[in-house]
């Protein structure tokens, strides 16, 4: 991806210090390794989310340790827990306050599908109200599963056409809500 090239040095003063790559690769590389999560902890999954942030599992190894409780400083919302219909609108508002580019991880059975709460009060999957990038199975998922989801999200971010979104007014459409 990002490679140091000695052949393309044009000036002896900077020779060896010039990196040639694509803008997409650089931007995605930066985004990938400094993803600031918005911990939307709504139920017991949030406990596992805390474990991921702790020393044993240490999400800092993947550059995502800066949990921001302000959506304006976060770019990856981790929905950890059961989303009720009463909470759904607030969740959407928090999502809307996040600056683009932004991603969503649906952590656990409840956030992904409503889980065992097949009832009048529970949103049957957070993808009905925000676009979800990665789903994590489990009730609650193991911390390793969330780390795996983060790595999958990073792999997904690396494939994004970052410059196309930077310089065009109309970003390519995200996954449709249903």
């Amino acid at each position, binding site marked *: 991806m990002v490679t140091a090239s000695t052949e393309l040095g044009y000036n002896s003063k900077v020779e060896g210090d010039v990196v040639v790559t694509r803008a997409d690769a650089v931007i995605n590389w930066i985004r990938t390794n400094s993803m600031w999560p918005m911990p939307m902890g709504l139920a017991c999954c949030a406990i596992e989310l805390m474990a991921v942030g702790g020393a044993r599992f240490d999400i800092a190894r993947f550059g995502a340790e800066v949990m921001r409780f302000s959506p304006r400083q976060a770019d990856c919302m981790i929905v950890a827990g059961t989303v009720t219909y009463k909470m759904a609108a607030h969740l*959407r508002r928090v999502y809307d306050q996040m600056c683009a580019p932004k991603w969503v991880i649906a952590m656990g059975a409840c956030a992904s599908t409503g889980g065992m709460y097949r009832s009048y*009060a529970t949103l049957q999957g957070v993808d009905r109200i925000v676009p979800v990038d990665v789903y994590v199975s489990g009730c609650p998922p193991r911390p390793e599963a969330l780390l795996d989801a983060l790595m999958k999200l990073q792999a997904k971010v690396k494939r994004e056409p970052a410059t196309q979104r930077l310089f065009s007014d109309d970003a390519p459409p995200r996954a449709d*809500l249903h």
Partner: protein
Amino acid sequence: MASGNDQSNAAAVTSAPEAGNLLGFLRNKGVAATERPSSDHPAFNVPAGEVVATLQHLRDEQAFDLLMDVTAIDWAEGASPRFTVVYHLLSTTRSAYVRIAVNCASDTAPSAPSVVSVWPGANWHERECFDLMGIKFEGHPDLRRILMWDEYPYHPLRKDFPLAGIETALPDADVTAETGTRVLAAPMAGGPFVATSGEINLTEAEPRAKDESWADRRPRPDQEGLKQVRE
């Protein structure tokens, strides 16, 4: 910790834990209480107009100092009285419970007197009861829904309300406009999820639809007739 005075008080109240004694106490206070069938604790039916005075007497003179719960029973459509409001009291000094039940006069717009004046802690209990069962508590200082949102049109714990829910609008119109999402009936996929306790095999113990003879595509046998009526 216990002074001589406290011990004498405790002796006085523990001497009358029986249902008959409590019934006699309430009758002496002029409350038209009747004994209610109960398998555990003393329970009494009380007319709606006398419930506040009843709870006040029990709190001040019988040491029932803690209101454990205010809830309601829906005896299902067609029953009359359809709604019964139930108060659970605990005496922390004599470790005794008593249950007071009040039948609501109206089967369509049930109401009961608020006991917030006696127990401020009844405030949220009564809001929950209003939210989920639709009991209107007369005299409540702030009778709003507490779990569902304010505009929600149903009372979900009533017997005629399906567990899956009824399609309705989300509380926020702007979010609905942006996402097109509404409150939908949850897919039951074979019935309510039930956990099995005491199972060693976790696969069997986890919550699942036990009755798999029917699902979304194949309606429950006893609802075939209902489905035809709707169609």
